[in-house]
């Protein structure tokens, strides 16, 4: 009998149920879309922030102080310490290897560069003092577990813009900074002679691209690191390593000194991808290295990420609130309008509890159907937003589904509870007489 009454109610007033259901589905669609986007957005935005480049800098521990002005190191080649390039594949073996987006070692050598193609090649005006930056453009790293991984300055310095193409690894090719290329008249396809002392011994490189970076690299020659090592006489060594890693914004806990933590706290700290804990684990695989956090990048990123995340959560909260109120209002309306029916049921001897139970069952049924449709609708919308903005859709999450269904049920029950309570106090006779 119970089921029959419920089925009858749906069959008799299909348009009503459809409208209440539609309100529910739309409301829950808002909730799903907002919830999925804000759950997903943290990781996606963290990736976007990697367009700022490296957030960790590795230097030799025993290094002398760099004499760096405007991004150019004025130390001679034989001053300071170096680190072995052979250790680098170990970076992909640390606990946080999936968070490491890219890394590139750098070896800088002060040089003189001239272009044999330009006519007055050996006059001093054409010979440019410059620096040679040896690094990886797209280097294949063989990780100890046998897989390979391609990384280089494209990941760590994504704002570098190369006209032409990057040099091939281990070849005698180079990319010339835009200012230097104007100064010495070296164009793509030209040869370029570089020498690290005197004009008697030089290496001839083929210019394959022109680099513009907005920084000191605009006055430099960028070459494969093996070429720089050969010119500097430092085979297999590098001076600086830039690492770009996905991190979690640092909170008060992350800023504590790991030495003062208890064993439990230390475990929690090293199992969160804070930039400082990633620095700590890199230090363990690179002996003799000093790993520093580039605070300017890391802290700015953390602050903005925290803000944006909070902003989206609050927008989600506001959306949930509006959806809940509208859905609640809709279900309240559907109960209010059924006074006559409630009166009739009570007149036929139904207890208030039974009537309430019956109506609640109806509403719940509607909530599940509407919530389910709303979830599907919301997922489609979240996909659209995700693909349009980040080029990747958020994964549908089961947790969101349960939250949405629970929310739909809770909101409809709450919305109908008040009118139902009032309905239970109705005098059937008054209602049926139409008073």
């Amino acid at each position: 009998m119970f089921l029959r009454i419920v089925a009858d109610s749906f069959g008799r007033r299909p348009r009503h149920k459809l409208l209440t259901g539609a309100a529910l589905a739309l409301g829950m669609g808002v909730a799903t879309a907002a919830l999925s986007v804000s759950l997903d957005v943290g990781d996606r935005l963290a990736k976007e922030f990697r367009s700022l480049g490296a957030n960790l800098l590795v230097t030799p521990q025993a290094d002398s102080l760099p004499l760096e002005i405007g991004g150019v190191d004025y130390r001679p080649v034989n001053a300071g310490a170096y680190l072995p390039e052979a250790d680098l594949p170990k970076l992909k073996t640390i606990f946080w290897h999936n968070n490491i987006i890219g890394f590139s070692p750098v070896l800088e050598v002060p040089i003189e560069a001239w272009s044999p193609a330009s006519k007055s090649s050996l006059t001093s005006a054409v010979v440019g003092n410059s620096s040679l930056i040896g690094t990886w453009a797209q280097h294949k790293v063989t990780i100890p577990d046998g897989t390979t991984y391609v990384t280089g300055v494209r990941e760590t310095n994504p704002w570098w813009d190369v006209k032409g193409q990057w040099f091939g690894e281990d070849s005698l090719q180079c990319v010339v900074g835009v200012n230097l290329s104007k100064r010495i008249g070296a164009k793509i396809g030209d040869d370029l002679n570089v020498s690290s002392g005197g004009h008697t011994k030089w290496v001839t490189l083929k210019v394959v691209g022109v680099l513009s970076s907005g920084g000191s690299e605009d006055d430099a020659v960028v070459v494969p690191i093996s070429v720089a090592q050969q010119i500097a006489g430092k085979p297999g060594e590098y001076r600086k390593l830039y690492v770009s890693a996905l991190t979690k914004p640092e909170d008060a806990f992350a800023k504590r000194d790991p030495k003062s933590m208890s064993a439990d706290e230390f475990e929690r700290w090293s199992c969160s991808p804070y930039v400082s804990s990633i620095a700590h684990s890199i230090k363990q695989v690179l002996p003799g290295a000093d790993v520093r956090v580039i605070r300017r990048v890391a802290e700015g990123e953390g602050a903005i990420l925290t803000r944006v995340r909070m902003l989206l959560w609050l927008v989600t909260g506001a959306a949930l609130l509006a959806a809940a109120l509208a859905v609640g209002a809709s279900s309240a309306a559907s109960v209010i309008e059924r006074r006559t029916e409630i009166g009739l049921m009570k007149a036929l001897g139904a207890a208030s509890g039974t009537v309430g139970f019956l109506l609640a069952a109806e509403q719940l049924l509607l909530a599940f159907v509407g919530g389910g449709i709303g979830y599907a609708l919301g997922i489609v919308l979240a996909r659209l937003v995700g693909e349009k903005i980040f080029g990747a859709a958020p994964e549908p999450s089961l947790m969101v589904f349960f939250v949405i269904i629970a929310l739909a049920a809770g909101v409809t029950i709450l919305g109908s509870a008040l009118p139902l309570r009032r309905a239970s106090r109705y005098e059937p006779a008054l209602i049926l007489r139409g008073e």
Partner: protein
Amino acid sequence: MTSSRATNRAMFWRIIRRLFGANPGRLFVMLLALGAGAAVTAALLNLQVDAKRRLTTEFRAFGANVIVLPKHASLSGSETLPESTIPSVPRNLGNAPVTMTASLHVIATVLSPQSGKSLSAVVAGKNPRLIGWVAPANATSLAPLGSPAIPAGPICMVGGRIGEQLRVEQGSSITLSNGDQKETCVAAGLGESGGPEDDQIVTDVRAAQRLAGLPGRISLIELTVPGSPGEIQSYIADLQHRLPDVDVRPIRQFTEGEAKIYNRISGLLTATVGIVLVLTGLCVMAAMTNVAMERKMDVGLMKAIGGSMRRVLRLFLAEAALLGLAGGIIGAAAGIFLSIGLGKAVFGVAARPRLIVYPVTVAITIIVAIISAFPLRRLASIRPASVFRGEA
């Protein structure tokens, strides 16, 4: 004729009053749905405009994004700018101030008389009032100012790594020398920043000028320009136009990265807010239509006593518009508080209310309410008798 029109109008409003009074429960429900929609619309519209502006301020956490250099600056770094360049840099972009740091770099020998160690390091002379980058909190708390045991004199901020190598303590004095020039100052710690400051000593620009023998010259000016990517571009173009003798460059690492992130975040915000608004409108509409469909009895009765469908519909549309107005005003008022709360929670500053948002919200609410009442048109074909007999 006029009197009958007046009577008509009086009757019209009387019916409207009765319609509102007839069922307080229903009235409450409708106002709740409309008000909730309006509140969220007002708050989100307000926040959306405000958040984009605030985000550009947040980006200043990255520090300087524009740099002014001598023209054709070569690698030797020997070219300098006259100090007179500084006043010609505009200090405001819109309402937001442009932060500026002018500095002169010189390589000097640093000696710590206490530990007896010395090394070569880059000394950056900056105007202390203009130092733009943020020194870590411990630098100021450990600074020796005001402590009587400390010799008076100029202060220099010692980069974390120099401090380590020289074994300099807070408050001990260090000597900077370049050729015959000598400067003494009191060391204050800087901590580690991961940037070039770690390997530098920052001191007063005058001291650095004396050390370098370059009075009145500076190496570069760093600017922290707030604003959207487009505003920064036009600021750079304007500055370059004003100062043709220098080179104005964006620090592309930050300007480009910021532009990308800014576009993503503002796109995300617009999309989320758009979806939420559209769906909330539809949801309110569905709820309202549900209520409107219950008015069958009223429509039937009005038609039975001789109301034309046009007039009946006009009555209900007027009722809906009034409801929309009331709900919109209540919601917009709630939206003011909601957006103040949201702004405070996210940015620590209340979102500035934008007056245009509120009339727009009320108008949208009225439109939604009127559209929701339109399904009543379907009742035009209804025969009043069948309504009363309970058939329809």
